[in-house]
């Protein structure tokens, strides 16, 4: 990728900069149409802008003068999905109170398929990594997930239960073998790609009793301060280390009871259920977060279909992401530490810096050697050293 896109939603302007040619510039002004979302196309030459009120999606091309419009896009969380190889794009649409999905060929933006879905109110769409199956799921009022083939045929429907709040998040396994569905009943159900039927469900109880599960608990360790060496004003490094507390992981003995929060029942979008799901790139592990137990990351062994590790943090989990190359999970909890877990163990890393650096999200580099840690106003690039061979 050789371009950087900057979108200012409030002003409705998108600016593009080139890495190769600093002189080159591009500015897209949506004007009164407004701008709600903007993203690149997989080939890096088209920009998809979603106008305000989701009136339409404009496809601006950087290589031709053509502009394409996609009408009636659906105003939902994940309305646009690209296949992994970047060939096809699926767009969720809603016309006349009915949901549709359109599949476009990214090379020439030709409409390939257009079909309606049996959803009440489509909530999200996601391609399988092999690019042949599209998962479409309904709003949380209905537990329903539909699986469509690339050519628009309905392959299967899955409903776990009725009436209670339904699907909160889904994740495909990298080999497209499994589809993990996290729902509001604190369970993850895994479907297999052959029959599209549930093969197992993972529960997230507040008490972990299985002796084969390893529970890592983050504990603070108080820093050793040598009072004699204190001087005024304290040097920067020492100051930061004084104020920030070191932490390390301890292995807790099973049974362990985790902090369970029951959300207020009269509020919408309750903080319950499985809010985050992610498969490791080697298809061996699944990391989940139960919003009822916000301080814990659950890591499941997919080969054995059992709970493998639970990471209990001191603060609520903000986000986690797997290393794109190996089964290494990076977790951030809103403090200035980033936590890593791998089958070899886990470690807590203090981000050096002055003041408060509250990491709210992180993102790995594709090579798995570095990552970006983001706070509200700052970001930090973290490099991971490879083991000396």
């Amino acid at each position, binding site marked *: 990728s050789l371009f950087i896109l900057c979108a200012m939603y409030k002003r409705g302007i998108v600016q593009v900069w080139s890495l190769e040619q600093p002189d080159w510039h591009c500015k897209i*002004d949506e004007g*009164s149409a407004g701008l709600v979302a903007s993203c690149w196309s997989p080939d890096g030459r088209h920009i998809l802008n979603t106008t305000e*009120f*989701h*009136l*339409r999606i404009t496809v601006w091309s950087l*290589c*031709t003068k053509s502009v394409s419009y996609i009408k009636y896009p659906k105003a939902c969380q994940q309305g646009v999905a690209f296949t992994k190889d970047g060939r096809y794009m699926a767009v969720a649409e809603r016309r006349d109170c009915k949901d549709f999905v359109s599949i476009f060929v990214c090379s020439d933006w030709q409409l390939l398929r257009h079909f309606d879905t049996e959803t009440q109110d489509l909530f999200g769409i996601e391609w399988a990594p092999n*690019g042949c199956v599209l998962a479409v799921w309904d709003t949380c009022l209905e537990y329903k997930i539909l699986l469509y083939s690339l050519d628009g045929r309905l392959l299967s429907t899955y409903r776990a239960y009725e009436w209670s709040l339904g699907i909160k998040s889904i994740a495909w396994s990298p080999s497209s073998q499994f589809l993990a569905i996290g729902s509001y009943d604190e369970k993850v159900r895994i479907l297999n790609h052959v029959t599209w039927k549930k093969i197992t469900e993972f529960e997230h109880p507040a008490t972990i009793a299985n002796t084969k599960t390893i529970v890592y608990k983050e504990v603070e360790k108080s820093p050793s301060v040598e009072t004699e060496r204190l001087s005024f004003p304290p040097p920067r490094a020492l100051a930061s280390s004084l104020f920030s507390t070191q932490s390390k992981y301890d292995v807790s003995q099973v049974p362990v009871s985790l902090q369970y929060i029951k959300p207020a029942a009269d509020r919408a979008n309750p903080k319950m259920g499985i809010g985050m799901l992610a498969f490791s790139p080697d298809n061996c592990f699944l990391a989940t977060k139960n919003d009822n137990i916000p301080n814990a990351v659950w890591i499941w062994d997919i080969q054995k279909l059992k709970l493998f590790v639970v990471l209990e943090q001191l603060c609520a989990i903000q986000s986690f992401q797997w290393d794109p190359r190996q089964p290494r999970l990076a977790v951030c909890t809103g403090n200035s530490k980033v936590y890593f877990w791998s089958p070899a163990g886990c470690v807590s890393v203090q981000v050096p810096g002055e003041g408060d650096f509250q990491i709210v999200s992180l993102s790995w580099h594709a090579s798995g050697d570095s990552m970006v840690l983001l706070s509200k106003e700052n970001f930090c690039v973290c490099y991971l050293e490879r083991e000396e061979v």
Partner: protein
Amino acid sequence: MGDWKTITVPVLSSDSKNIFQYTSDKKISSPSMNSQVLRLPLPSSKSMHSFFSAFCTEENIEQSISYLNRELTTLGFPSIYAESKGKELNLISIINCMNELLVLQHKNLRAQEEVEMQHLKLGSDMDHLQNCYAKLKEQLELSKREIVGLQERDRQLQSKNRNLHQLLKNEKDEVQKLQNIISSRATQYNHDMKRKEREYNKLKERLHQLVMNKKDRKIAMEVLNYVGRADGKRGAWRTDKTEARNEEEMYKVLLSDYEQRQKQLLVENAELKKVLQQMKKDIISLLPPQKQKPKERSEDGPVLSDLEEDIGELNKENMWELSCETVREQLTNSIRKQWRMLKNHVEKLDNQVSRVHSGALNDKDVISREDHEMETEKLELEIQQCKEMIKTQQQLLQQQLMSPCDDDTTLLLQDCYLLEERERLQEEWRLFQEQKKNFEKERRSFTEAAIRLGLERKAFEEDRGTWLKQQFLSMSTDYKHSENVTTPSAFLGSSEQDNRLVKSTSQQRKPHCVLSSSVSAEPCQTSHYTTRNSSSVASKKPAGDDSKPNRWVESDKEETE
């Protein structure tokens, strides 16, 4: 005897009353008798005495005796009077009667005691039974009360149960109702949502129109220069062809994905089939040979034949790749059968083991521990013995092979061997001698033949000489032909010679042949003679006549040939 009676009645009446009372009381009832007995102890001696004296006094002896007599006779006793009607008393009979009466009295007393005992026993039994009866009555009361209590509880529980059922039903009804409410509310909400959405869409459309109508110059893209496509190709127009191509590409993608999946599944399938085959083989090898158990044979006979067929069929390579239903089913069914058999076998073994542990020795298949141990001991002993035997034998063998001739036995043995050898040698010597003799004989005959041959040759030579002379003479006298009539006489003189000469003349025509044939006949004859003892003669042939080496050589050759 009315007078006597009237006299004695007042006295007796009291006594008789007593007596009668006594006896009648006896008949009435035993308890009263008991009481009577208790109440009326046997009268003391004094009273008895008075009692007895009351009956008979000095005045009424006669009456009392007669009375006694009457009583006794009525009771079956003999009369106490003497035989005559006189008033003499038979003392013996009196004494007998008394004795009898005493005996009777004892008997009666004994009977009375027995009856009293029985009475007591019965009384105690009665008490006991009464107590039991009372207790049982109490128990019966208690249990009745309990039953009533339990029944009451049962009734309460049943009513509770009914209440709970009712509650459950109510709850279920409520749940159903709530669900219905929810669904109706949901449809209502959906409807409302749709309505609002339509309104919203209308607004959006209106807005869109407004936005588009404004022809906002602002909605534009400023670009310095257009960038090339990512893949370097030029953009193409969208045509039907491209549409078709896109469709094609999409289907290709789908197909390739399906093919890949199918390949993976095939590979997995093949592996699993292999594993199943392996498992089947292992199970078959683990199972005991079925031939030993005849009763199971009938069951497993067809199974075995099936198995063999299966093995035969499914071991073929091509069968593995077939994934049709029948083949799959065959394999899985056969594996299931095998597994069941193995399970049964293992269960049987488990049972056997458990039985052995519990000590049951009835089963013939099971060898008890002691027997087993005994057998092993026996076998060990046998092994020991065999080992010892082997050792001794080995020792003996070694001695045999390596020991010097010190022992008598070995000497004897050696002597035996020598004797054997000597005998053998003697036999050979004998043979040798015989052969030698034969050779001698032959040699002699040979030499004789040679001598004869020489003589014959001489004779022949002489004859030849004479015949030549004759011939010459005849040739010369042919000129004087008429005068050589006497010559035939010369010829006739020796008939033998004539014959020979005739022979020779007849044979003269072929001088070579005659000579050779005649001469060769003889050595041939001799050679024939000598060929009888061919080998030895050949070796022992004398250098022979050098005069005819050729022919000897020929004969030799003939012989050797």
